[in-house]
């Protein structure tokens, strides 16, 4: 691990890269979506051969930054210098030719084509024969196809996948698909490789192997790598420089040690480093080939707040979606007040009194706040009860009453979260499934939301809380479960979990 | 992807099997029992024809089929030359017409009734000429059907003389001072008559004040065309088109309160048999048609009675044309004492010689003669619709 030396303008440069121009310099980068500053005043410098990490809570704008660098979105302000050249006015294709390659958060392979064809597509702009020469099978076609064939096997060899060359990309197991996407990006001969959550959904041994390979790529190709990742062992284990993004802004930068101990980072992101109603028994969920939920069981007693914590991509949202019927699990039993939820269609579950506030809130943007709340009361015919529910929602969330005529789409992140919870309350549920209520909210708003969750619980609502902000979630819960890559690794009283050093290390950066 | 292959292969295989079973050469068609009404098959001359059994104009195909069958029955009963008639469907499409023609050739067709409508007629007449199989078409009236082919003759008016005959008739009878024309510009029949009508009208100094068109796709709203005619002050509307579009024009003109005199062509025939059409709207519509079901001569009466008793509706001039074709062939075959065992080529020479010399009296015109490029000259009859019936003018 070479020493990081502070440089005057934007922070730290790897000792190796001092004296050489940095590969990437983003200054005051920003983009606004309809008034909402998704990324604001983003500054980052990456050395020629640096492995840099970009971390931050879910919804902090990390993927948006990648989309800005690769010109999928055109930035509204700020400049991006790639190897000294200003990429202003370039489109996505020119930027790729200039030397930036990327992978995607949700895998985007050419699934009907073979592994080798996917890699050859990476070499598209480095295959030197034109369409006519291809059709007429001129000599340059044969030379280039031979060269790209060997080059593709060579690249696949890095992840020892060359034996899979003839397989259809779509039929590979999850880990192999992730690695193929990286190889395809390498095939475009980039100077800077952007990896979007490469270790997501990988088990510890696969993660270990991936760390080895990323280092190997950097050393063989002498290129810079900028990666987004939630798995802290992976990030601290491999990145030389880490930048922490929250609320669209860089709030800290430096070596892993410096970043973890930085108080401001801890408070906002790591949270230094946070009569049975519902019964889930050995639930298994598959996404195509990927075994996302592995045989988990949990229960929530009446009146409790139970927290389900874990890193992003551990399967928290998948679990909730399996419970509320939004996706069909492979096997297992989910019962709520002696109803078998797996056998009930999604829209009937709310009638049993179990409401689900989905991840990302998903309010009906083109309908007014009042209309959204009315939708929440879709199942109830009882006018009086609806009126009371409406009053109690407005009492909990006075701001919603002020804005009841407004279109939900124009509300701020926090207000939309309140609306989503209010909407769920309109169905007068006995139990609430809350999916990451604190996502994308400023620290002080997060406190307010958790205060309201506590009040709702005191009003008698049982709550299963799914949260990434481990410390906050465990502090208000009675019991908790810790989920890691689809398996429950720890469970027990919330207080003990807070003290448990494994949890501390994994989620509290102890 | 694998699943798709299995399904596709299964379907294609099933269809392929039926194909090979059916396509075992032309054995399949020999036993065409359905159309073989009357007459023993041994000594009969095979007469084939194509027509739009499916598709928009199917009422013409049925009418001609029935008319020809009655004639075939009567002739075979007389014991002289025997005919065996077979009609194939061409859905008013040139490609299917040629396929139908080839099916009939496999059947051993010796004489041909060509095709019912103009576009298929042009395509099959070219085949008739190449294979030198004589053709006498009851109703394919386009000039391209007979042009450059010495063995293709028409029983119906050719477009040119239908167009010019109408112009001549209108100017002779002074039916209208200001004339408007609406024609269907994506239909060979309608635009053919229009072109010859306009050239003849120019010669005769008829004042054509408005010319508008429509196509199959825009065959619903005629307000623009009728407005144009009305504003131009036309007192006679010439409608060279088939009856379905004409009924719409009559309907919309009446709704607009625009009541000029209407002058149609043989395609107008059939408007009275249109289901649900208010015949009062057609009151006073004039048209040139070679056949009138109410004519008082004995031959027409027996044909109309037999047609009505067998098919339950009054025959239109397409049925009469087909009936006359069979009789004309009969007359030519008897004069040339043609026999069933002659080849198509032999019959072709005989027919050409007969048709360019003989005169023929039939339901659709007396003293009809043909010139050497196959066009008929016969006296058209002016008809007017009065209280729902055709009356001679």
């Amino acid at each position: 691990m070479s020493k990081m030396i502070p440089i005057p303008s934007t922070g730290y440069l790897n000792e190796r890269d001092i004296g050489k121009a940095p590969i990437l310099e983003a200054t005051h980068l920003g983009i606004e979506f309809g008034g909402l500053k998704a990324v604001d005043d983003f500054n980052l410098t990456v050395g020629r051969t640096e492995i840099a990490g970009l971390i931050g809570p879910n919804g902090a704008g990390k993927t948006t930054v990648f989309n800005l660098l690769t010109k999928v979105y055109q930035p509204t302000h700020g400049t991006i210098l790639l190897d000294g050249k200003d990429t202003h006015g370039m489109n996505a294709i020119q930027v790729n030719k200039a030397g930036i390659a990327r992978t995607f958060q949700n895998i985007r392979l050419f699934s009907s084509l073979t592994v080798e064809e996917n890699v050859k597509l990476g070499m598209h702009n480095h295959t030197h024969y034109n369409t006519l020469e291809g059709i007429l099978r001129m000599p340059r076609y044969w030379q280039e196809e031979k060269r790209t064939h060997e080059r593709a096997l060579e690249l696949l060899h890095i992840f020892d996948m060359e034996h899979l060359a003839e397989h259809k990309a779509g039929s590979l197991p999850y880990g192999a698909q992730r690695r193929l996407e990286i190889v395809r990006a390498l095939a475009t001969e980039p100077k800077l490789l952007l990896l979007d959550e490469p270790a997501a959904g990988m088990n510890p041994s696969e993660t270990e192997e991936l760390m080895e390979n990323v280092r190997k790529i950097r050393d063989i190709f002498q290129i810079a790598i900028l990666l987004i990742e939630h798995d802290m062992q992976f990030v601290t284990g491999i990145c030389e420089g880490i930048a922490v993004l929250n609320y669209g802004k860089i709030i800290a930068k430096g070596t892993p040690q410096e970043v973890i101990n930085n108080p401001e980072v801890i408070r906002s992101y790591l949270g230094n480093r946070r009569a049975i109603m519902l019964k889930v028994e050995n639930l298994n969920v598959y996404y195509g080939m990927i075994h996302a939920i592995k045989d988990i069981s949990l229960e929530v007693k009446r009146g409790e707040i139970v927290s389900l914590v874990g890193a992003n991509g551990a399967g928290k949202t998948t679990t909730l979606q399996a419970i509320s019927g939004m996706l069909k699990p492979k096997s297992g039993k989910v019962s709520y007040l002696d109803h078998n939820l797996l056998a009930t269609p999604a829209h009937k579950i709310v009638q049993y009194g179990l409401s689900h506030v989905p991840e990302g809130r998903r309010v009906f943007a083109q309908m007014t706040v009042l209309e959204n709340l009315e939708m929440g009361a879709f199942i109830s015919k009882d006018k009086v009860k609806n009126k009371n529910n409406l009053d109690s929602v407005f009492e909990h969330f006075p701001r919603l009453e002020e804005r009841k005529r407004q279109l939900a789409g124009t509300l701020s992140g926090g207000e939309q979260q309140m609306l989503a919870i209010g909407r769920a309350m309109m169905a007068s549920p006995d139990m609430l499934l809350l999916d990451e209520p604190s996502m994308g909210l400023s620290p002080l708003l997060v406190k307010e939301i958790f205060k309201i969750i506590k009040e709702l619980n005191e009003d008698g609502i049982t709550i299963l809380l799914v949260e990434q902000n481990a410390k906050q979630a465990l502090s208000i819960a009675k019991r908790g479960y810790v989920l890691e890559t689809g398996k429950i690794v720890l469970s027990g009283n919330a207080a003990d979990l807070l003290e448990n050093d494994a949890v501390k290390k994994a989620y509290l950066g102890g | 992807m694998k699943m798709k292959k299995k399904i596709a292969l299964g379907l294609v295989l099933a269809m392929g099997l039926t194909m090979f079973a059916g396509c075992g050469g032309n054995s399949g068609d020999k036993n065409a029992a359905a159309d073989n009404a009357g007459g023993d098959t041994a000594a009969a001359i095979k007469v084939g024809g194509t027509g739009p059994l499916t598709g928009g104009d199917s009422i013409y195909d049925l009418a001609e089929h029935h008319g020809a069958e009655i004639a075939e029955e009567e002739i075979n009963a007389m014991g002289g030359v025997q005919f065996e008639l077979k009609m194939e469907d061409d859905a008013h499409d040139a490609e299917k017409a040629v396929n139908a023609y080839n099916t009939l050739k496999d059947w051993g067709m010796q004489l041909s009734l060509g095709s019912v409508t103009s576009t298929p007629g042009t395509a099959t007449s070219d085949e008739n000429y190449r294979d030198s199989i004589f053709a006498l078409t009851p109703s394919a009236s386009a000039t391209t059907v007979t042009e450059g082919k010495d063995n293709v003759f028409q029983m119906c008016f050719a477009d040119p003389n239908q167009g010019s005959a109408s112009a001549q008739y209108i100017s002779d009878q002074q039916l209208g001072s200001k004339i408007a024309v609406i024609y269907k510009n994506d239909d060979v029949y309608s635009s053919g008559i229009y072109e010859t009508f306009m050239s003849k009208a120019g010669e005769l100094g008829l004042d054509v004040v408005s010319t508008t068109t429509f196509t199959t796709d825009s065959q619903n709203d005629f307000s623009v065309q009728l407005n144009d005619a009305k504003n131009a002050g036309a007192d006679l509307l010439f409608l060279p088109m088939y009856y379905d579009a004409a009924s719409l024009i009559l309907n919309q003109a009446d709704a607009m309160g625009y009541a000029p005199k209407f002058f149609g062509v043989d395609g107008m025939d059939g408007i009275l048999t249109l289901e649900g059409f208010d015949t009062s709207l057609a009151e006073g519509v004039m048209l040139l048609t070679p056949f009138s079901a109410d004519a008082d001569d004995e031959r027409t009466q027996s044909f109309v009675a037999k047609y009505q008793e067998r098919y339950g509706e009054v025959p239109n001039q397409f049925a009469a044309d087909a009936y006359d074709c069979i009789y004309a062939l009969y007359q030519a075959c008897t004069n040339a004492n043609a026999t069933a065992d002659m080849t198509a080529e032999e019959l072709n020479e005989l027919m050409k010689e007969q048709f360019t010399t003989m005169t023929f009296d039939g339901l659709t015109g007396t003293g009809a003669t043909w010139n050497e490029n196959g066009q008929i000259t016969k006296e058209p009859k002016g008809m007017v619709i009065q209280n729902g019936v055709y009356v001679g003018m």
Partner: protein
Amino acid sequence: MSFLSNLISGISLGSVYAIIALGYTMVYGIAKMLNFAHGDVIMVGAYICFFATMRYGMHPIIGVLLSMIVCTLLGIVIDRLAYKPLRQAPALAVLITAIGMSYFLQNSAQLLWTSSPKVFQSVIGNGSIKLFDGALSISYVTLVTIVVCIVIMIGLVLFVNKTKIGKSMRAVSEDKGAAQLMGINVNTTISLTFAIGSALAAIAGVLLCSAYPTLTPTTGAMPGIKAFTAAVFGGIGSIPGALIGGILLGIIEIFAKAYITTQLSDAIVFAVLIVVLIVKPTGLLGKKISEKV
């Protein structure tokens, strides 16, 4: 004066397109599905009304009601049989199925009722009121069509904005997943949209054939495509857009016929569709639908 009479016939043609377009917008807006067979449901509606009034001498109103019932059932059956299994399928598959369904309806009609044209006795009688001493006449059919068109549009706007079921339809059109969590059964909502769309198609069929009385199995095809053009022109998914788009397209077609050429009027209408789709795919009043990366 001819300008006014052309304008009137433009509006009357346009109002027919508008009613058909309302059906398209409802189904496409909610179920995000281009129901190619919508034009042919109109033809079926017209045939049912024709047989009811002409063959069995029923009162026109009963004829219209009967055809609405039949078309509504037909709409639901089509959705359940052909489109529901393809809820998650790619757009290409859904479009080809819709084309298949359109051909199926046309050819079954041809086999059942033969292809010879039927003359449709206008349900509203075919008198007309005369203006400016007879120079300009507006047929009752046109008046009724325009009035019915506006009434239906207002009814739909109120239904979608004010009633609970209507709002649930809007919720489904925005986010099927979230709507499910509210307890809304997405499949029944989409079927209901098809039912309403098809009922509208029945009314459109009756009015189309009252204005232009010949009726053949392919009567619904071309007006269907032109009405889709109107729906896109007005902004697919927006109910007022369908009305405005329909009327405007009718006027464009008639003016193209009157002032440019009758022979290329169809080509001009399609040219309008292409220009609109390229310049402003969301049409006059449509909502922007951005695709998330």
